[in-house]
């Protein structure tokens, strides 16, 4: 009964989505206020309906209802409750439901925070989101229904892939999807602007916080996925340039470009056409990513074709969304206008260069991800494009982008002068260069890449410091604290996010430069050394978990004779799928991670063991979280908070600020 209610709620949601996707857009076109006012209640109703459906599926999982095909396929009676709930997004059908659910959450948020928007704009935005939702609901209801019954019911479920039975997996997909789907808001803003033909600075100011929020979620989502791969796969790697990872990275690159391009549109009214194109691009890549990962096309191009209904739907849907929005773009964009002119050497110019580099990097990732699929689909042979390709393309494209990242925030809008910039930045450049050259020598080994990485990281930090110092000199306030407080939060946000990149670069550089690993055979009581650490293997014991059995090894780690920690890596066997899993043991630290994973049991209680010493690896994820924190700071800026206050939308911001001062 409950699954049928969920199914029915989805059908109703589709009906509501159809209304939401048609009437308000038509109403906005003809200026009919009654039709436009449908958008808000429709979006909220749709949210409630999809919430109901999501709740029903969650209930089916919690209740171990193995008469639902999807539940039987992805969970098991032995599976703990929190993993049963995470199994909702453990495979294709449920992921689509999560996607749609998050889309309706964003819609609901738009209805809450759009009181300051003109009614036509709001109606168009919600209408476009409704249309996207129509696509997903149709897809679910026609070819991948999560509520499909299995009759007769299975005695027990096939279990969730053990790799996914991990706390990281509980949070990672929702975060990632919040990011993916969040770009649908930016997309809807862009399409609404194209439909209405009014693309101005106000438009950019409205769509900026939404884009930044989505970007923050995506950043965290990707970082968590990378962290999950690091500790769960047992191979100590944090990024594999796997198509699944690239699928999430491409929208991030486009989204990063979009965040910067929106800044120009907001402040200077420039880049309008380009911003719209980026918004379309970011969302299209999100869609592409979702489908790449969830359609099975990566597993096998031919498997994709064996289920032609699903494949066809996906291709048609992608074609309509991407083709349709690009056609609209080609038709309407010329009317939008170009915005103010600027010199090549100006803040706009540098942001443009940053955008071009980011998009070029995105294109190279896209090529490396899709090219093997095309070859395979056309039966031209099987190839793989591995990390060396991505490394050798990505690094040269990002180096100039990061160099510009230091200069851009200090350059004037419209026109900057080289001698002036050089004067202001010579100190920062000198410090960066000297420390980048000497630091690796102090640390014990010098390579060009090590120096380059450190140069970029220190460059970002020092230029940020110069920028902040100049900024402080120009704000009101007597004491330093007062001055710091009067720097706008959006500026802090930018500084923090940029420093996050610096932290990230330090992490990558140090891990690549100084990590060490060892595969060894270890008898009980034997020791092995890596870095400055000595590992003593104390044998492995059998342990029993809720839905697995495991061999748990014990490793005493010491440094200079003093015990550092004891690590317990496991080799787990999940009987339902008869799958073996390596559960690495990690001792994390600010300056280094120690990482042990068990290989295979050998004779006499000996094991083959993999040991890693990974300096600074946590800085990689730390950097991502700092970036997201920067984004959050930027959104909390006063100008947005004021804009969202609905009571006095007619009063311009400066007037209100003045009024407050008087009061």
């Amino acid at each position: 009964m409950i699954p049928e209610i969920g199914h029915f709620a989805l059908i109703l949601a589709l009906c509501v989505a159809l209304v939401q996707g048609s009437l308000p857009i038509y109403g906005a076109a003809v200026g009919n206020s009654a039709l436009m006012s449908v958008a808000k209640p429709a979006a909220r109703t749709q949210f409630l309906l999809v919430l109901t459906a999501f709740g029903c599926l969650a209930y089916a999982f919690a209740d171990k209802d193995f008469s639902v095909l999807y539940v039987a396929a992805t969970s098991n009676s032995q599976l703990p409750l929190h993993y049963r709930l995470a199994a909702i997004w453990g495979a294709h059908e449920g992921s689509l439901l999560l996607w749609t659910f998050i889309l309706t959450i964003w819609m609901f948020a738009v209805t809450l925070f759009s009181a300051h928007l003109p009614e036509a704009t709001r109606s168009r935005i919600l209408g476009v989101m409704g249309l996207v939702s129509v696509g997903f609901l149709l897809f679910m209801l026609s070819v991948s229904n999560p509520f499909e019954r299995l009759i007769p019911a299975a005695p027990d479920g096939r279990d969730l892939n053990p790799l996914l039975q991990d706390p990281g997996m509980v949070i990672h997909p929702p975060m990632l999807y919040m990011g993916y789907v969040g770009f649908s808001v930016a997309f809807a803003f862009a399409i609404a602007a194209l439909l209405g033909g009014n693309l101005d600075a106000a438009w950019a100011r409205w769509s900026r916080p939404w884009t930044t929020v989505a970007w923050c979620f995506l950043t965290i989502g990707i970082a968590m996925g990378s962290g999950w791969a690091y500790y769960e796969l047992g191979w100590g790697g944090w990024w594999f340039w796997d198509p699944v990872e690239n699928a999430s990275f491409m929208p991030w690159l486009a989204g990063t470009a979009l965040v910067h391009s929106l800044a120009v549109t907001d402040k200077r009214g420039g880049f309008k056409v380009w911003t719209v194109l980026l918004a379309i691009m970011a969302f299209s890549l999100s869609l592409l990513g979702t489908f790449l990962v969830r359609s099975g096309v990566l597993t096998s191009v031919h498997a994709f074709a064996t289920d032609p209904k699903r494949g066809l739907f996906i291709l048609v849907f992608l074609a309509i969304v991407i083709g349709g929005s690009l056609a609209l773009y080609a038709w309407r964009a010329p009317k939008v206008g170009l915005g103010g002119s600027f010199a090549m050497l100006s803040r706009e110019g540098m942001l443009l260069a940053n955008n071009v580099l980011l998009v070029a990097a995105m294109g190279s990732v896209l090529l490396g991800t899709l090219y093997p699929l095309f070859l395979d689909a056309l039966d031209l042979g099987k190839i793989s494009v591995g990390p060396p390709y991505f490394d050798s393309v990505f690094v040269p494209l990002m180096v100039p982008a990061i160099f510009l990242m230091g200069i851009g925030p200090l350059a004037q809008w419209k026109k900057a002068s080289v001698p002036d910039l050089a004067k202001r930045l010579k100190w920062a450049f000198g410090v960066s260069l000297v420390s980048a050259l000497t630091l690796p020598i102090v640390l014990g080994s010098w390579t060009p890449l090590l120096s380059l990485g450190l140069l970029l990281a220190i460059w970002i930090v020092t230029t940020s410091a110069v920028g902040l110092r100049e900024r402080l000199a120009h704000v009101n306030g007597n004491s330093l604290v007062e001055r710091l407080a009067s720097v706008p939060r959006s500026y802090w946000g930018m500084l923090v996010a940029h420093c996050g990149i610096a932290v990230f670069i330090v992490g990558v550089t140090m891990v690549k430069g100084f990590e060490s690993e060892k595969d060894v055979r270890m008898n009980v009581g034997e020791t092995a050394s890596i870095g400055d650490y000595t590992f003593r293997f104390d044998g492995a014991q059998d342990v029993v978990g809720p839905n697995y059995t495991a061999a748990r090894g014990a490793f005493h780690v010491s440094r200079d004779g003093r015990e550092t920690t004891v690590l317990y890596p496991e080799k787990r066997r999940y009987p339902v799928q008869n799958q073996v899993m390596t559960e690495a043991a990690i001792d994390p630290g600010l300056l280094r991670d120690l990482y042990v994973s068990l290989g295979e049991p050998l004779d006499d209680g000996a094991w083959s063991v993999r040991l890693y010493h990974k300096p600074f690896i946590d800085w990689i994820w730390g950097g991502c979280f700092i970036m997201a924190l920067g984004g959050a700071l930027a959104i909390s800026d006063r100008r947005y908070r004021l804009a969202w206050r609905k009571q006095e939308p007619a009063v311009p911001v400066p007037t209100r600020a003045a009024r407050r001062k008087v009061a």
Partner: protein
Amino acid sequence: MKPRHKRFAFIGLGLLVLGVATVLILNAFQSNLVFFFTPTQVAGGEAPHGRSFRIGGMVEDGSLVRENDGLTVHFIVTDTAKRVPVTYKGILPDLFKEGKGAVAQGQLGVDGTFVASEVLAKHDENYMPPEAADALAKAKASGAQQSKSLVVPDGRKGSL
């Protein structure tokens, strides 16, 4: 500069960046593509010597031999038509099993043994890596004798 000149300068800059990117990409593509060969192709001499490539198929039952150091392993990859001996030093991924699909990357040694630098751990809920399934399917299509334990992936399930 007049606005028109300026625009040309911009377009020129954009094209320059794109051009550099294209050169980088094509260059990297050329030197970093890893081709895939089935055991039948390797046995037929189609695989390159002195260049890294991938081989995939099934790990033959009972072929896994471990040396005394506990790390060096020998096994045979087969597409049910031809067999290729493989040597690898290191820890094998969890999904590696006799009678299951596997993909290895490495080079062909002088004696015809495939020296693997990496045995791939696809993070994938299917036991069969796509390349391995493909190798088996090709051998099957060409009428080779089939093995009983042939596993074909369930195409409906996506990867992670």
